[in-house]
Each structure stands twice: as C-alpha cells, then as structure tokens.
C-alpha cells in the first residue's frame, strides 16, 4: 500500500488545478478516496468526526444485498438445469447463474458509473457513492434474460433523468433502480413479463447447452395465480417450472422462478438483519410495509371473490418482490419519507398499495415496483404534514404568551 500511496502522491499534481489532467480531477479523487481515507481535516465546527461516511453506508447496503444476489444466481442455475432436464452439481448451477448475471452487473455499473463520473467532473464535485448500490440493484430486479443493451439504455435513462437532472445522489425524487425497472417494463413489456423471461434456457458462455424438456413452463408463482382458472385458492396449487408442486419452504429459500434478487426471502431477511443491526436501513419502514401488506391481505381475504383474493398473507410476503422491495427499496433514505412518523405512514401505504395492485390488476401480477414509485412521489407530502404538526405546536405555544 505504501508504494501505491507514493505513486498516487507522485501523479496527484497532474490532476490538480493547472495540471494537464485536471479534467479528470473527480475521477482521480474517486479512486484515491476509494483506496485511502482522505486526510483532509476539519476546518470549521467540530474537530472530530464519526468514522461512518457515505462510502461505509453504501458498503453495508451492498454487503446486505450479497446473500440475496448469491441465492438468486444459484436459483438461475437451478432452474436452467431443471428446464433442460439435466443433472448438475450445486457448484455448476451456481457458476452458470453467476456467469449469466455477471454481464448484467458489469453493464449496469459501467453505464451508470460512467455517467456519474462524467457528471461529477462537469459539476466539479466528488463522485457520490449512491450508484454503487443502484448498480447492483438493477440486475437483481430485472428478468435474468433481459438483453444487455436494454439494461444499458434503461440505466442511462434512469441515472440521467431520475437522478442527475435533479442534482445527483441525495436530490432524486424516485428510486433510481426502480425507475430503471419501470422504464424497461413500459418500453419492452414483452421482455419484462410473461412466462418466457424468468428462466434462462440459453447457454452462458457455452455452459449448460441443451434443449428445453416437454412440460416446461417458466411462469412465476404470482403469474400462475393471476392467470389461473381455479375458482378458489383451495383448488389452486403453485407449480414449479417442470410442473412439480411448490412448498412454502421452496418459496422461502428461493427455489422458485423470478428476478434474481426477489426469489429467496431467506437471503433477503439475512440482509435485513444486517441493515437493521447497523442502523443503515430503517426497521420502521420495513415493518410498516409488512403491516400495511398484512392489513390489505386481511381485508381482501374477507371479501374474497376469486383465488388471488383468497391467497393468505404468508404467500404474499414470500412471493414476488414484496420482501425485497420492503427491505431494500422502500428503505432508500433519499426517496423515502425522512421523518420517523412519516416512515410509518410511508411504509404502511406501500404495503397496502402493493397488495391492492397485485390483487386487483390481473394484467400485472406484481405491485411492489409501482407502489414504491407512487409513494416516492408522496413521501415529501407525508413529511410536510408531519412537520406541519411541529410547526403548529410551536405557534400554539407562542400564542398564549402574547
């Protein structure tokens, strides 16, 4: 590390004001601070600072996402070999999934970070870390077979129009990863939903060649339920991709088709534990999303008319993006409500809306994305009313003394 430090010190003058590489100043700074803690010391105010910075915060979120990412990769491999009717070891399945997902992660990071670096340079600011999380979220919430160019286009759109035009990380109104997802969903619906997109049947870098067996169906459990002809939930059974019945534990551990991030509720809960323990994610938001969801399901169950309305609450939480959205998307501090009371309301309404969209919109079996985006727009309004309570209290206090 010492040699590296010396090298950095040697080349640093090139990037400073007047240096011939000054136009790469932000980029140099980003790499330098990635390698070494900046040794700039406080000039005003407090003389000591907490060791937690933006990089640390984002690192924790990424670490929290890793279990879900790994389980998702394994799930991709598992379903691939199942669809092809081939036997493979756990490691082979994982490697297949890893190689299938890796290009998406690379594309999302290269495009997103590329834009961030350029814009930071133009603004003469330091590169913000927000995209490190967004960049890994994007591959985790899109179907595994999404073409790379689509991811590139959607990422570029979201980073520029959902974030940078508003001023960059910390100023955006909508969750950037979800805007990417929404852009894909509305621009390329055929690649984003249906039975064909959730299981990767093609080979990855030559691994896992074969043809799909008869009786294969790539529909997600929620997709099956949305299109079922069954009159009641009791008559309906969830099926895996080769027609085998799915148990609750399959759904919990992630042996179901779906987006990479959302399949394993178990892995998501591991991430949630880390976020809550470190205080990086708000447990209030997480809990209230589940509460809102539970209330909605109970209400819907009471007035059930068909299978999906009868589906009990545990299935709602285990299937689709509900848990993933609650833990990793709703808790994005920038786009969420910022007051503590506001977080309860914000989370509750997300849960409520997500279930409502799921149940009452047969064309669109998953409601989490739209619910969160919708509530992103309302978060400032919720905060406004919470803070208004404080303002009114202050005015009331002043009144009698006059």
């Amino acid at each position, binding site marked *: 590390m010492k040699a590296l430090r010396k090298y950095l010190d040697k080349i640093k003058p090139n990037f400073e004001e007047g240096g011939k590489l000054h136009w790469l100043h932000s980029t140099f700074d980003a790499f330098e601070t990635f390698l070494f803690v900046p040794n700039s010391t406080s000039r005003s105010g407090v003389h000591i*600072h907490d*060791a937690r910075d933006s990089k640390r915060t984002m690192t924790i979120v990424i670490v929290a996402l890793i279990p879900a990412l790994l389980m998702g990769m394994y799930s991709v491999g598992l379903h691939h070999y199942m669809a092809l009717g081939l036997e493979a070891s756990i490691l082979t399945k994982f490697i297949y999934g890893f190689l299938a997902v890796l290009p998406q992660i690379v594309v999302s990071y290269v495009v997103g970070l590329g834009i961030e670096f350029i814009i930071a340079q133009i603004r003469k600011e330091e590169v913000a870390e927000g995209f490190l999380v967004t960049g890994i979220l994007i591959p985790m919430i899109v179907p595994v077979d999404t073409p790379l160019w689509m991811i590139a286009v959607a990422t570029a759109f979201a980073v520029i129009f959902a974030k940078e035009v508003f001023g960059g990380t910390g100023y955006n109104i909508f969750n950037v990863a979800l805007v990417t997802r929404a852009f894909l969903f509305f621009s390329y619906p055929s690649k984003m939903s249906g039975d064909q997109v959730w299981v990767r049947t093609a080979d990855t870098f030559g691994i896992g060649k074969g043809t799909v067996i008869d009786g294969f169906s790539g529909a997600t459990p929620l997709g099956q339920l949305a299109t079922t002809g069954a009159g009641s939930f009791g008559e309906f059974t969830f099926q895996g991709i080769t027609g085998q019945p799915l148990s609750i534990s399959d759904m919990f551990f992630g042996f179901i088709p779906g987006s990479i991030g959302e399949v394993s509720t178990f892995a998501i809960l591991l991430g949630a534990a880390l976020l809550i323990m470190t205080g990086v994610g708000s447990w209030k938001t997480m809990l209230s999303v589940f509460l809102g969801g539970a209330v909605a399901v109970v209400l819907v169950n009471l007035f059930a008319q068909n299978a999906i309305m009868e589906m009990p609450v545990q299935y709602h939480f285990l299937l689709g993006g509900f848990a993933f959205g609650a833990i990793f998307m709703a808790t994005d501090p920038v786009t969420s409500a910022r007051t503590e009371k506001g977080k309860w309301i914000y989370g509750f309404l997300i849960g409520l809306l997500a279930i409502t969209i799921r149940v009452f919109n047969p064309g669109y079996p998953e409601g989490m994305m739209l619910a969160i985006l919708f509530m992103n727009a309302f978060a400032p309004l919720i905060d406004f009313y919470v803070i208004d309570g*404080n303002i009114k209290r*202050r005015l009331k206090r002043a009144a009698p003394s006059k």
Partner: protein
Amino acid sequence: MANRINIKKGLQIPLLGAVEEIIRGTVKSEFVRICPEDFHGITPKLAVRVDDTVKAGTGLFYEKNHPDMLFASPVSGVVTAIERGEKRRILRIVVKADSTVQYADFGAKQVASLSGEEVKKSILDAGIWFLIKQRPYDVVASPVKEPRDIFVTGFDTAPLAPSTDFLLKDREADLQTGLDALAKLTTGKVYLSVSTKTTLKGLREAKNVVITEFNGPHPAGNVGVQINNIKPVNRGETVWTLNAVDVAIIGRLFNKGITDLTRTVALTGSEVKQRGYYNMVIGTELKSIFAGNVTEGVSLRYISGNPLTGRKIDENGELGAYDSQVTVIPEGDDMHEAFGWASLSPKRYSAGATYLPFHKKFRLDARLMGGPRAIIVSNEYDKVFPMDIYPEQLIKAIIAFNIDRMEQLGIYEVAPEDFALCEFVDTSKLELQRIVRTGLDLLRKEME
C-alpha cells in the same frame, strides 16, 4: 425536590484523555491576547491605544452600538499591539502583563440593596457583560432588551469536559451572589440546571433560582437543550443564557469589587501527557502548558474549548474568553488509511453500528473521515438532537435562507453548539455549525 427531566437522545463520545481532578498550578504568560471575535455578535471599537497602561478590569474595547458595554482587560499592564486583519478588522489586542496584577476597584456591593439597573450598570462597567449571552441568535446579550427569563447551566456534558462541581469548589459564595444579581435583571425567573451527578451544595441548594435536574448524555448540558425542555423560546421573546462558572465571575465582582477573569482550565485530550487543571486568566498564552507535555512526532491539533465546539489554535495560541477547557488531539493529516470503507479497525469509532465496538475509549483525530455529500441518510441528526425541532429540515431551511420556514421550524431556539453532535455523526460531513452560525447572523441582520 428539583424537577427532573430525562434526556434520551444524545451521545457521549468515548474519547481518551479525560482530565484528572488535580490543580497543577497557575499559568502566567508575559503577554495576554484578547480576540474580539470570541465575543459573537458585537462590533468592537477600541477604547485603548498602543502604549496605554491598563488595570485588570479596564475596558480594552466597547461594542459600537452600546458604548457602555466594555470588554475588560484580564490583567494589568501595557497595551503593546493591536493586531489587525482584512479591512482593519481587529484580530487581537495584546497586553504585556505586570508581574503582580493591579485590579481596577469597582467597590464591593450588596446585591440585595441594588436595583436591576444598578446591577446591570455594574456588570457593564466592569467589562464582563459578555459573559451573558442571549437567544435568539446566540450572541452577547443586548443590555437594552428585557429578557423573559435567564437560564444558567450548571454542568458540562461535552466530550472530556471539566466538572463544573470541581471548577466551582471554592467559589460557592460567588456563585450565589451571581445568581442573586441575575435575579435582579429579569422580571421572569432564573433557571439553574444541574445534572444528576452534581453534588456541589452551591449548585444543588442554590437559592433565588428554579432548579431543574437533567439526566442523560451530551448535549443535556447545553443550555439550548435545557431551555427547549423547560420553557422554549418563542418568536419575539429573548432569554439570556450563562454557565454557572461565569455566574461566579459576576458574583466575584459584587463580593470583591474587582474584575477577576481567572478561570480554572482543564487540560484534556489523548495527546496530553499530564492532564489536569490550571488556573489562568482568559487570553493567557498556552505554550507553557503544552511544552514537553504533548505527544511528539505526530501532527497535533490544539483546541481552546472542547473537541466539538472549541476554536482551533496553534501551540502558541491563547485561552478563549469563554473556555474552561483546552484539548489536544492528533491532527491526522499525516495518516493514510487504506480502504477505510471496508475497515474493521478497532481504532475507528462510530456512533452508529457500522463498526464493531472493540474498544471502550478512542483516540480520534481531526480528519473528516469522508468527503462532503448531499444529505442522504435520514434520522441521523434527530438521534442526537434532544429538542422538539426537526434539525434536518431546519438546516435545509437555513441553507435556502427561507426566513418564514426557519422561524416556523424553531431557528430562535438554537445555537450552533446544539448542532455539534449532528455535525459529528453526519455521514455527509457537512459543516452544520457554520451553516447555523451564518444563518443566525444573516437572520439577525434582517430582523434588527
């Protein structure tokens, strides 16, 4: 039985370098330097010239808008220099101290027999009015505006802070006289706050005041937090604030008839070898207590005050007018820590739980530990801000300088020091105290 208020929000930063309760001696320096900038919110006008002879208590300068508000020389001697900065701003007034102090005689007075106006005039004449500050704006109190109440904090919860009990040990009579004098200055009440740990009788059993007991971590000792929890400041109201040590200085004026700006100062911080208390007047050069008594071979930061709100000085610096604490910590600019974002180093401290708590006490340096960002993490400030105010929203209103919004969100109740802990924990490394200070100054200009 005193009313008790529990403060839950806050943070006691576990720093190495707490002070030992020993008086290590009296420090005298050849020159004493007074910085008018220590006294916030005043425009200084010189009352002396170079080569003038002064006594302890003679006014060195006065406030432009209140010429009767003098600022006393803490020692007797000869004015040797007036240091000036940009636009002829007065930076320091240097007095070469006599070997024995000669005090200007103001005459001992019985507070009980004085009127409020007489008490006020005595304090102004003696040049120690600056000990009284006011909310709103956190500036030296305006003597013409009647305060609703006066708040005195009787304990200090800042990191490594000295014990107020210890500082006031032999000054209990002065303290009571000071409190009696304050009671003459308001038609409202004088509120004195003590900690659950306070044992000094002079504080616990002080008379002529309303005593409130506070229990909790820093910033429970900040007078702003106490006001907000006892009787908040509303728009249009003014309250005066002091700390108990300064009240004793006012008390001494009436008991002895002299301006004695001697403070007992705690020398603290992880880089000090022999920590303890020293007696000295404000403006004393501190080099003699640093010499040979600090860690060698590393770059150091000297602070007059505590590590959260103190002023940066150098090793030849002097004691600030309001400070009872001097701190030395590592500067940290010679450090190159690799991969800090992934670090599991037990030397790193965070109030949150993003680092494992291996150690109980920490040696923190002056690094920012990150780069400035937009406000991203929510509920960070609230956790260390025990007032009925939304700190993040108030900061945003100040940055936007939206006067209506600032008023609505409680700008009149806060001082920069109330945001010190927010600034410490801030993931985005924003200079919150500077933002609040600038906001208060601009607002004052608009309103007055």
